């Protein structure tokens, strides 16, 4: 039963609609001889020579959605004592209070670990991420603006981006303190400063190196790396959590 509940939580991230435009060829995709997208072709570049991170991307499985620190040893997450206790309580409670169970959004930086595709688009002055999960978007301003002083805390926070060599670096603050970074329940407070480095190393593969600097919950900054892959020849679907949420009232914890 416990396993079923966990599965239900994870399923709430998955899209249910059927395919539309799902076989529409991606423009300018490099192709192998058999016509398939060449995932190991060099990473494309924009006219100004930067690595082009646009495209539809998908997390490789559930690993980081379940545990953002999956690649670290348990004692390598530098919890403050209260945060360690909260994490333990959330795990023992099988994630009952995960905001996602109520169809509240995943926050930064969980969104890119969700097992629904996200689409990165580039415009003058901003990078845009469209998320199939929840059909919501996130704006990352690249016009040189600084963090606002009076920003109302939110699930996605306020994000600015810049290029550091071939890395697209996104800084986010203004998070609302309610965020679970994964279904295990790693907490993130309103003091958090999240840095994401998007590094596309070939046509079909990208690393997102995520550094969590949240002195309220963790004694020092810590870093993990996720590895989404490109989805070519497709488009996002629509996914409406509240349309399908039959799980919330069944999730009881311990």
């Amino acid at each position, binding site marked *: 039963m416990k396993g079923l509940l966990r599965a239900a939580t994870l399923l709430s991230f998955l899209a249910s*609609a*059927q*395919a*539309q*435009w799902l076989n*529409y060829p991606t*423009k300018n995709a490099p192709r192998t001889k058999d016509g398939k997208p060449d995932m190991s072709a060099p990473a494309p570049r924009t006219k100004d020579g930067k690595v082009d991170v646009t495209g539809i991307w998908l997390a490789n499985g559930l690993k980081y959605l379940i545990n953002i620190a999956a690649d670290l040893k348990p004692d390598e997450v530098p919890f403050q004592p209260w945060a360690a206790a909260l994490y333990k309580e959330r795990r023992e409670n099988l994630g009952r209070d995960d905001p996602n169970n*109520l*169809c*509240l*959004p995943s926050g930064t930086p969980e969104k890119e670990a969700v097992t629904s595709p996200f689409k990165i*688009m*580039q*415009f*003058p*002055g*901003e990078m*845009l991420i*469209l998320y199939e999960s929840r*059909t*919501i*978007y996130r*704006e990352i*301003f690249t*016009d*040189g*603006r600084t963090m606002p002083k009076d920003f*109302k805390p*939110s*699930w*996605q926070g306020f994000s600015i981006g810049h290029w550091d060599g071939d890395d697209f670096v996104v800084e986010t603050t203004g998070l609302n303190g309610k965020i679970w970074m994964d279904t295990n329940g790693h907490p993130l407070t309103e003091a958090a400063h999240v840095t994401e480095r998007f590094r596309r190393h070939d046509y079909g593969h990208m690393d997102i190196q995520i550094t969590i600097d949240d002195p309220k919950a963790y004694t020092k900054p810590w870093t993990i790396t996720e590895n989404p892959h490109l989805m070519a020849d497709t*488009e*996002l679907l*629509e996914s*409406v959590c*509240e*349309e399908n949420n039959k799980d919330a009232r069944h999730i009881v914890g311990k």
Partner: protein
Amino acid sequence: MLAAMVVSSLGPRAAMAQGKPDLSGVWKPDKVLSIRAKANALLLNHKATESKRDPDANCTLSGVPRLDLGPKPFKILQSPDEVVLLYQDFTTFRQVFTDGRPLPQDPQPAWLGYSVGKWDGDTLVVDSIGFNDLTWLDNAGTPHSEALHVTERFHRRDAGHLDIQITIDDPKTFSHPFTVTEHVRLSPNVELTEFICLENRK
């Protein structure tokens, strides 16, 4: 803030790379537009549609063209192959493909449908189909069926003003297609804020 100011100073002739008008910016309706009065005269069956629950109250997703009609602002971002409409309401979006692809045939009904756009002179013409019948056309509860076809004509009259001519064609719900025109105003130096329906459900 520099880029936002640059965007807001662009006039309707400030061409994009392919010589098309630039519709980019944060836009806010002058007033909340109801299409109910016009729609009522054309309704084929008044009874069948009155009890449908407001999808906004359930925090599923709003509808088209309801999201355009205010009061919350929306933002347009424009690339050669796609125009994206970002709505503050629901923090949701619509993708309008302008790369020449056709509308899908017999699509799975969706809350916000499927949209393609093309240019008619300086006007972006957006055609949308494939809606479910759960959404309202406006805040006044104007109903529609899955046969709904919405055409939105976006015309940037000058730097600060955008006119959106909206045609509703739904032969299962209305005796004729009808058209309303909405006027929206540029909000310079403003960004959208996150709005999560479930946090605001009363």
